[in-house]
C-alpha cells in the first residue's frame, strides 16, 4: 500500500464511519447519464447561477443599498457635483474605483442574461421533446416557477443601481401594483413606504434580490436536480435504447470531467463577454429623477415581451360607481401573463388528458412526430416574439425609419393573426418531415448515381439506410385518437357531453400523422 492510498483510506474510513457514505457513493459514482448536446442547456443555467452567486457576493462588498442622498465626488467627471442616491454613487464607485469592479458588474449582468436565456432554451428543449411527461411533471412545474422567479430576480437586480433607466422601470412596476382593483394604492404605499419613489424600495428589493429569492432558487434547484438524479435522465430513442433502460456514460470519471469542465467553459465565456462587451453602462444614464427620462427606455429582453404587451394594449379604462379599473394596465401586465404562465405550468396535465396516456415516458419525442405539440410551442413562441418586437417598437421605428404607429399596428394585428398561422405552418412542416422519414426508410438514400437499364431507362440508385437509422426513424409510437362515446352502452347521453366532444376533437387532431413504415412495408418493397 502506497502512502497516498494509506492517507486516502484513513480519511475515507473516518467519513464513512460517521456517515455511511460508502454505500451511496459506490452506487452513484457509476450512475449512467445519457449524452446529448441538448442536455447541456440546463447545465448552462446551473453554472450561470453559480457565477451569479460568486460575482454578486463580490458586488455586495461595496454596493450601498440606500436611497440616502449624497453629493457625488468620485472619479467620473461628468457626474461630479450631482446629487444622487448612495446606491447609484456606490455603483459608480464599483465601476470606476474598484479594480475588477466593472468587470464583475458586467460578468454579473451577462451571467443573468445567460441564466435567463438558458432557462428559456432549456424549457424549449424539454417541451419540444416531451421530457415533461410522466413521471417528470413536478420538475416541469418547478421549472416554470424558476423561470417566473428568474424574471423577477433579474428585474430587481437591474433596478438596484437606481439609475434613470432602472428607476423608470420601477415606476412602471409601481403603476402595475397601483392599478390593482380595491387594494392597489394600499399595496403600492406599503411596498414603497409611501408615495413613489420614497426612500425604502432600494433597501427592500436588495434584501429580496440577494437573500430571499436566491434562497428560494437554491432550494428549488436542489429539488429539481435531486429529481433528475432520482428519476434518471431521459434519453433520445436509438438502437439499444428503450423505456426500461438508460444508455450513457458513468459519472466517474468522464462525465464528471465533462460537466466540471463545462462549468469553467461557461464561466470563461461569461468572463470574456464581461471583458469585451459593455453592458448596462449606468454612468451614461445619470441618477434617477422621476421628472426626467431618456428616450428609447428599454427593459432587459426577458421583460421586453411584457413591456411590448403593455405598449400595444388598447386605451381601455372603466369608471364604475366612482372607481377606476385600468384595463390598459391589468390586461397586458397581469391577466395575459397570468394566463400564459398558468397554461404553461398545466400543459403536461392538459396533454395527458388529450392523449389519455398515463404511462411513464423516458424516451424523448422527435418534435416532428408530435405535430400538435410542436405547433402549439411554435405558436406560443410566435406570440412572445411579436410581443418582444413591440417592446422595442421605438428602437425598430428609428432604426428602420418607420412610423411608431406602423410598428404598433403591425404588432396589434400580428399578435392575433400570426400565432395561428405559425401553428398551421409548423404542423404541415412536421407532417412533411414525417413523410420524408417514411420515404427514407422505405426507399433509402438517393445516391445521385444514375443507372441506364438495358432497355434504355434511367433510374437513380437508392442506397438502403442502416438498420440503426431505420430503427431511430421508426421507434416512436403512433397512438390512435381516443375513442370517446357520446352515449353509454344503454344509449343514454353522457354527462359532460360538451367536454367530451372537445376532448375528442383535440385528440383526433392530435393523432393526425403519416403512418410510419413497418417491416411488412419494407418486405413488400423488396419484392418489387
Amino acid at each position, binding site marked *: 500500500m502506497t502512502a497516498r492510498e494509506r492517507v486516502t483510506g484513513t480519511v475515507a474510513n473516518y467519513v464513512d464511519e460517521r456517515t455511511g457514505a460508502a454505500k451511496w457513493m459506490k452506487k452513484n459514482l457509476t450512475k449512467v447519464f445519457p449524452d446529448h448536446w441538448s442536455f447541456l442547456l440546463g447545465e448552462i443555467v446551473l453554472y450561470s447561477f453559480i457565477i451569479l452567486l460568486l460575482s454578486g457576493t463580490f458586488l455586495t462588498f461595496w454596493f450601498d443599498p440606500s436611497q440616502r*442622498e449624497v453629493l457625488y465626488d468620485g472619479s467620473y467627471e461628468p457626474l461630479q457635483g450631482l446629487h444622487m442616491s448612495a446606491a447609484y454613487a456606490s455603483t459608480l464607485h464599483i465601476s470606476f474605483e474598484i*479594480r475588477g469592479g466593472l468587470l464583475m458588474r458586467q460578468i454579473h449582468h451577462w451571467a443573468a442574461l445567460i441564466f435567463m436565456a438558458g432557462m428559456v432554451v432549456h424549457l424549449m428543449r424539454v417541451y419540444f421533446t416531451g421530457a415533461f411527461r410522466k413521471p417528470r411533471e413536478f420538475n416541469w412545474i418547478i421549472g416554470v416557477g424558476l423561470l417566473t422567479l428568474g424574471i423577477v430576480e433579474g428585474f430587481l437586480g437591474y433596478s438596484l443601481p437606481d439609475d434613470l433607466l432602472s428607476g423608470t422601470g420601477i415606476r412602471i412596476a409601481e*403603476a*402595475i401594483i397601483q392599478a390593482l382593483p380595491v387594494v392597489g394604492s394600499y399595496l403600492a404605499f406599503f411596498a414603497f413606504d409611501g408615495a413613489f419613489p420614497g426612500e425604502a424600495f432600494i433597501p427592500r428589493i436588495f434584501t429580496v434580490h440577494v437573500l430571499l429569492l436566491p434562497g428560494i432558487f437554491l432550494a428549488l434547484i436542489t429539488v429539481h436536480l435531486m429529481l433528475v438524479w432520482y428519476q434518471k435522465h431521459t434519453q433520445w430513442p436509438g*438502437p439499444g435504447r428503450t423505456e426500461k433502460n438508460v444508455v450513457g456514460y458513468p459519472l466517474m470519471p*468522464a462525465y464528471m470531467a465533462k460537466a466540471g469542465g463545462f462549468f469553467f467553459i461557461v464561466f*470563461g465565456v461569461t468572463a470574456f463577454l464581461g471583458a469585451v462587451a459593455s453592458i448596462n453602462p449606468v454612468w451614461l444614464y445619470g441618477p434617477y429623477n422621476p421628472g426626467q427620462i431618456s428616450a428609447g427606455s428599454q427593459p432587459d429582453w426577458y421583460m421586453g415581451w411584457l413591456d411590448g404587451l403593455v405598449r400595444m394594449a388598447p386605451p381601455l*379604462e372603466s369608471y364604475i360607481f366612482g372607481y377606476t379599473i385600468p384595463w390598459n394596465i391589468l390586461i397586458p401586465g397581469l391577466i395575459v401573463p397570468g394566463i400564459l404562465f398558468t397554461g404553461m405550468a398545466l400543459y403536461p396535465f392538459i396533454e395527458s388528458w388529450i392523449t389519455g396516456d398515463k404511462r411513464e415516458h423516458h424516451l424523448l419525442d422527435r418534435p416532428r412526430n408530435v405535430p400538435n405539440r410542436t405547433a402549439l410551442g411554435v405558436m406560443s413562441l410566435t406570440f412572445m416574439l411579436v410581443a418582444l418586437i413591440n417592446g422595442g417598437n421605438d428602437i425598430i421605428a428609428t432604426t428602420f425609419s418607420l412610423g411608431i404607429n406602423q410598428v404598433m399596428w403591425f404588432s396589434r394585428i400580428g399578435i392575433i393573426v400570426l400565432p395561428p398561422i405559425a401553428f398551421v405552418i409548423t404542423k404541415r412542416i412536421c407532417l412533411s418531415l414525417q413523410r420524408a422519414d417514411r420515404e427514407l426508410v422505405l426507399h433509402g438514400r438517393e445516391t445521385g448515381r444514375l443507372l441506364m437499364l438495358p432497355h434504355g431507362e434511367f433510374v437513380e440508385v437508392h442506397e438502403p439506410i442502416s438498420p440503426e437509422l431505420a430503427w431511430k426513424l421508426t421507434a416512436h409510437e403512433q397512438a390512435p385518437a381516443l375513442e370517446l362515446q357520446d352515449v353509454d352502452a344503454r344509449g343514454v347521453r353522457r354527462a359532460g357531453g360538451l367536454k367530451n366532444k372537445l376532448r375528442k376533437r383535440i385528440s383526433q387532431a392530435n393523432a393526425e400523422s403519416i403512418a410510419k413504415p413497418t417491416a411488412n412495408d419494407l418486405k413488400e418493397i423488396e419484392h418489387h
Partner: protein
Amino acid sequence: MSNEIEAIKDPGLPAHVHRKADTDPVAEKRAERQVAILFLISALGTLLFIFAYYFIPEDVFVFFPVLGNTNAHQLVLGLGLAIALFFIGAAAIHWAKTLMPDEEVIAMRHTMRSDDEDRDALVATVKERAGAAGLGRRSLIKRSMGLSLGLIGLSPLVLLRDLGPLPGDDLTKTSWNAGTRLVTDPGDRPIRPEDLEVGAVAQVLPEHVGEERRHLSDIAKDAVLLIRIRPEEFQLSPERLSWTYDGIIAFSKICSHMGCAVALYEQTTKHLLCPCHQSTFDVPRAAKVIFGPAARPLPQLAITVDSEGYLIAQKPFSEPVGPSFWERSS
C-alpha cells in the same frame, strides 16, 4: 396494435468503436501533451490577470476597431480571467474525450411507483398510527388546532402593516396651490411669459420653500411641462382656454398611463410623446390621447401671472396626476 407486431426491429446497441488514443500509444501521448498544454494556457491566463491587476494603470484607454475606446486595465483583467477559466474547462473536456473510458453502459430503470406490498403497508401504518392518536375522533382538538393555526397565519400580515402609511389623499394632492409660482427645473428661477418663445417647452416645478432639498416623491407628482404655441391654435373649451395664459399651456409631466415622464415634444405636430409606451397627446386639444395605451389626457394646470408678472398656478390640479388607481373617480 398491428404496428407493434410488424415494426422494424431494434438492432441493439452498435459495437463500440475505439478511439485512436485507445489503441495507438503515440496518439495517447499526443493527447496527454495537448491536455497539459491547455492547462498551461490557463495558468498563463491567471498570470496575465494578476499582471493586469497590479501593473496596468486604470486610466489608460486603447482603441480597438469593433470595441471602440476601451479601458486597458479592465479589458486585460477580463481577458486574463476568461483565458484562465476557459482553458481549464477545455483541458478537462479534452482529457475526458480522448483519454478517459468512453464505452457506453446500459443501466436499468425502475418505475417510480412503489410495490403494492409497500403501499399497503404504508396505508396500514398510517391508519394504525392516526387511529392511535385519535385524529379521527377528537374533533374538539382538531377544530381548536385549526383555529389557532389559522390565526397565527395572520400574524405576518399584522406585522407587515408598518411597511408603509395608508395612501390618504397622497395620490390626489400635489404641491400646486392657488398662487404657487412656477420655477424652472433645474435652476429654481421664477418665469415670466416672455421667457418662453412660441414653440418652446420648459419643465417647471412649484416654488419650493424651506431648507431641505426637494423630495423625489414630490417631483414625481409636481413635475409640469410648459408649452407655448400661438393662442389661435388652441382648440379648447372656454373653461380650459381660461386656464392658459397668452398661448402658454401647462400639463402634468407625469404620464396618465404608467407615470413615466412625458418628455418628448414634437414642435411641428405639437404632440407630446411618452418614451415608455408611446402614448401620444395632442397639445392644442388639451393633451387628448391620439395614440398609444394611455386612456386619459394629461391633467392640465390652470395658470396665470401674478402682480409682478411671474407665472403662477390659478388653483391646484382639478384631478389626480399620474397613473390610474382604484379610488380615482374619473
